[in-house]
């Protein structure tokens, strides 16, 4: 009897939670179909896909996402490797650093970035290149906690020291060790980190809206939401599908190893 009560309790919360998951999605989907009067249609989606701004902002954010991934990996992989190999004493420091983006919320970060880089001596926000640099840097900072952790966990799973020494004894130099020994072993971690970064950057609003405005996908969605009701619902569905695709790819590459893959861009 008690066992059944416990099971009932579990089922109750599970069903409630799934409803919480699914009802908003269903509501949004149904709403997005109502663009045509008195009939269900995909008109809202057609309009979104016909909008050149949809494609240009999408491409822009995708591009920024790829640059962020590249910059983040270049910055983090050698550092995390070297710290594990030679500087274990710095691990406490890097752990502290990877918590910093949590202490400094995105809105505060962008506030500080604008204050520092819009004026002397940097004047970065005066040019496109400068602005994009700040944008990518901000996204690398946002991605830092989970990127560092993913890479570091990946490094923990392989015997960094033995691999390095084995490669050295075979005459390999540092580039060979890094690119042909360490990085191939980190593939799964790097891919997870990359897709999570992409998922974050694609819809990111806070930082993008202050630095580049409606050039980016997040601010574009926001603008559509202010004027067009049905299109905004279809954008929400598209965006959800996109997040789903990125997370699915992570699962696929990590072969079902459930990682708490959570970025911070709300």
């Amino acid at each position: 009897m008690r066992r059944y009560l416990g099971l009932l309790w579990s089922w109750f919360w599970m069903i409630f939670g799934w409803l919480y998951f699914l009802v908003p999605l269903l509501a949004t989907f149904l709403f997005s179909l109502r663009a045509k009067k008195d009939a269900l249609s995909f008109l809202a989606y057609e309009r979104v896909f016909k909008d050149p701004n949809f494609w240009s902002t999408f491409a822009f954010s995708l591009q920024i996402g790829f640059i962020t991934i590249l910059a983040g990996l270049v910055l983090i992989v050698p550092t995390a490797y070297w710290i594990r190999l030679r500087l274990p004493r710095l691990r406490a420091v890097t752990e502290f650093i990877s918590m910093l983006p949590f202490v400094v919320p995105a809105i505060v970060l962008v506030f500080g970035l604008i204050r520092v880089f819009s004026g002397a001596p940097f004047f970065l926000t005066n040019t496109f290149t400068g602005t994009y640099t700040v944008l990518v840097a901000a996204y690398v900072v946002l991605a830092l906690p989970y990127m560092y952790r993913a890479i570091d966990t990946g490094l923990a799973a392989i015997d960094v020291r033995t691999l390095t020494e084995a490669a050295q004894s075979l005459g390999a130099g540092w580039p060979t060790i890094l690119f042909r020994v360490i990085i191939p072993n980190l593939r799964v971690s790097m891919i997870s980190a990359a897709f999570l970064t992409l998922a974050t950057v694609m819809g990111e609003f806070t930082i993008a809206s202050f630095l580049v405005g409606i050039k980016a996908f997040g601010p574009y969605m926001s603008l559509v939401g202010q004027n067009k009701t049905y299109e905004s619902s279809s954008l929400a569905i598209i965006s959800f599908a996109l997040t789903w695709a990125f997370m699915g790819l992570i699962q696929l590459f990590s072969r079902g190893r459930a990682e708490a893959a959570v970025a911070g861009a709300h």
Partner: protein
Amino acid sequence: MLRSNNPPSPIKRDASSARPAPSFPWRDALWVLPFFLFILLFVILPSASLLFGSFQDKQGNFTFQNYIDLFKPSIFSAYWVSIRISLASAIGGGILGFMMAYGVTVGGLPRWLRASLLTFSGVASNFAGVPLAFAFMATLGRTGLITVLIKNLFGINLYDLGFSIYSFWGLTFTYIYFQFPLMVLIITPALDGLRREWREAAETLGASSWDYWRRVALPILTPSILGAMILLFGNAFGAYATALSLTGGFINLITILIGSQIKGDVLQNLGLGYALAMGMVIVMAFMIAVYYLLRRRSERWLKL
């Protein structure tokens, strides 16, 4: 985000640090310099810049006045609303997430549910910001699915009762959408860490299920649960995009206030704006310090 997943490395890498206090290997440290320079330039410098600015008055003289002004009712209320929404959504999302994680770990629900729950949680906890706001407008907005459903079924108009998607509760329900999946992701490993032997030992000693939870499981889980709640709190506290696109800026949240200050000095006092931002950092730093202490404690019992 911040996972307490840091398995002890299987490598005996500390042969060098086993020797008595070797001097710091500066030459090795050169290779990690770019990383630390990056952090200095894009995290420390911006924060420090805000910090310095927050101690200046309009003429650029040193002052504490900006921090005193944070307690003015108009500004303090923004913090207060932010803190209340973050707490409410962290507690609500925390309970729901815990119960779901409980169901698939020790609650005896079928195994396939676990995989699908974890996958969906990964997606939903990253589904936030602008599109999430759209989704909740279609759900709980004035003509939203649930609003209309409740009106047709029970004849109750939520909006006549004072509910609104733009209000405290509207925002809280929306935040919970990304809060409880995060709770599921964080707390599932902790629940997995509860050993069957503990329960058996308790039962052998005559403990009921309630005794076991109250005296064994919950005390072990408490640091993990509180730590997770702090992460959820921070998640909601820093949220800007969701709140802005849901309410159009018509809710007095601290992030919204900072946003308008960035756009155009609405406070007419730059220093106060910087103090506003530093106030958020102070709240988060306090939270993260508590989180850190709790994690230390929970790691004693659970190999996460």
